[in-house]
């Protein structure tokens, strides 16, 4: 279990950022994963008093506060209307309602978990991460970076696209064995594979929606998969093209419904 000497409820982002510059500090968001990491830190910095839990609909995008719980996104009418119910369908299998009332989107994005349903969907939707110091960074770039001491403040999700997620789990509510998210915009299909088990990656962009199965097999052959308790790399490589095809099909169905 995580050990902290001091627990500070930050009163401003400036204060949180300043405190977080020391290696002996850690940001606490949902505290779902962090508490199990066996950390021993001098200071825990809590962001819960900063009002970062809102979801705001702008003309061209949704801006989601880093402390917004997954459940708030799952049940947000505007988000689900704009993206064909993708958030509801993608987040509902994550553990349980109480868990999703607590787990935050900012923590999933910052941590770049190798098992994240959240990152896969946000990557497919070409989201941007708004960091306190650096400002806006494309999530696709942020996913590749090492953990730093900047603070995720918001996630910006551009409108004008729809998405669908497919995942395989050993049992309901478990971490996914493999997750595939697909989105459709004017630029074509964008496909993301997550829980490889490694950070989610964009594996195809601008793909035609009617691509034959061998295209997905070709894409999967170029992706690196790993082995863990849930499945082997060979198994993941085998099911990846199937999930990709299903996600694309589901995404097209959503797009057709919207028309």
């Amino acid at each position: 279990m995580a050990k902290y000497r001091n627990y500070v409820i930050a009163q401003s982002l400036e204060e949180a950022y300043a405190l977080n510059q020391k290696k002996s500090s850690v940001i606490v968001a949902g505290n779902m994963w962090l508490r199990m990491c066996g950390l021993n830190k001098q200071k825990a910095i809590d962001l819960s008093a900063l009002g970062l839990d809102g979801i705001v609909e702008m003309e061209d995008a949704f801006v989601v506060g880093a402390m917004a719980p997954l459940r708030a996104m799952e049940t947000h009418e505007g988000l689900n209307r704009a993206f064909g119910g993708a958030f509801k369908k993608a987040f509902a299998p994550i553990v349980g309602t109480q868990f999703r009332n607590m787990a935050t989107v900012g923590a999933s994005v910052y941590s770049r978990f190798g098992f994240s349903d959240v990152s896969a969907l946000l990557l497919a939707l070409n989201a941007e991460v708004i960091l306190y110091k650096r400002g806006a960074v494309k999530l696709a770039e942020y996913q590749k970076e090492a953990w730093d001491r900047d603070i995720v403040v918001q996630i910006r999700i551009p409108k004008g696209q729809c998405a669908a997620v497919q995942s395989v789990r050993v049992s309901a509510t478990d971490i996914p064995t493999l997750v595939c998210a697909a989105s459709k915009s004017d630029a074509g299909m964008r496909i993301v594979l997550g829980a490889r088990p490694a950070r989610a990656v964009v594996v195809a962009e601008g793909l035609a929606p009617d691509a034959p199965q061998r295209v997905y097999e070709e894409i999967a052959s170029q992706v690196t998969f790993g082995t863990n308790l849930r499945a082997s790399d060979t198994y993941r490589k085998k099911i990846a093209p199937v999930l990709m095809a299903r996600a694309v099909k589901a995404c097209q169905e959503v797009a057709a419904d919207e028309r």
Partner: protein
Amino acid sequence: MNVEFTLNGRKIAAEIDADENLYAVLRRLGMYSVKCGCETTNCGLCTVHMNGKAVLSCAVPAARCAGSVITTLEGLQDEAKKLGECLAGEGAEQCGFCAPGMMMNVFALAKENPCATDEEIDAYLAGNLCRCSGYVSQRRAIRKYLAMKIEAAEGEVRA
């Protein structure tokens, strides 16, 4: 450090460690309905309401509770009796270890979606594990409880 919050309608001041979780504080305060099963946020045994939302108290930093309203099953005894009767009537309880957490989540469901379908009940309670009674009898009991709540609400409107 010291933290003040409202527990089951009463103002509480508690001395806590910086890395302590809400579950440990509640047990220390005598809230023995709150149990710890997995400590990995999977089983739902430690469910309490924090500012009206069902949360897993084993993962809530106690220091974050300052100024919050916390409710445990001890604070909802009338409702617990009604739901308990439904559970007993449907044979939906055996060892009873999971019941307090499950009941707290059912109360959250009743508030959020009183007309929940079987599918919605299953989805809402996916984070509450039970190792002995199975879930079918629980679902029947919850359905009965929700129907009872709706009937009572309709009765109030008619009156």
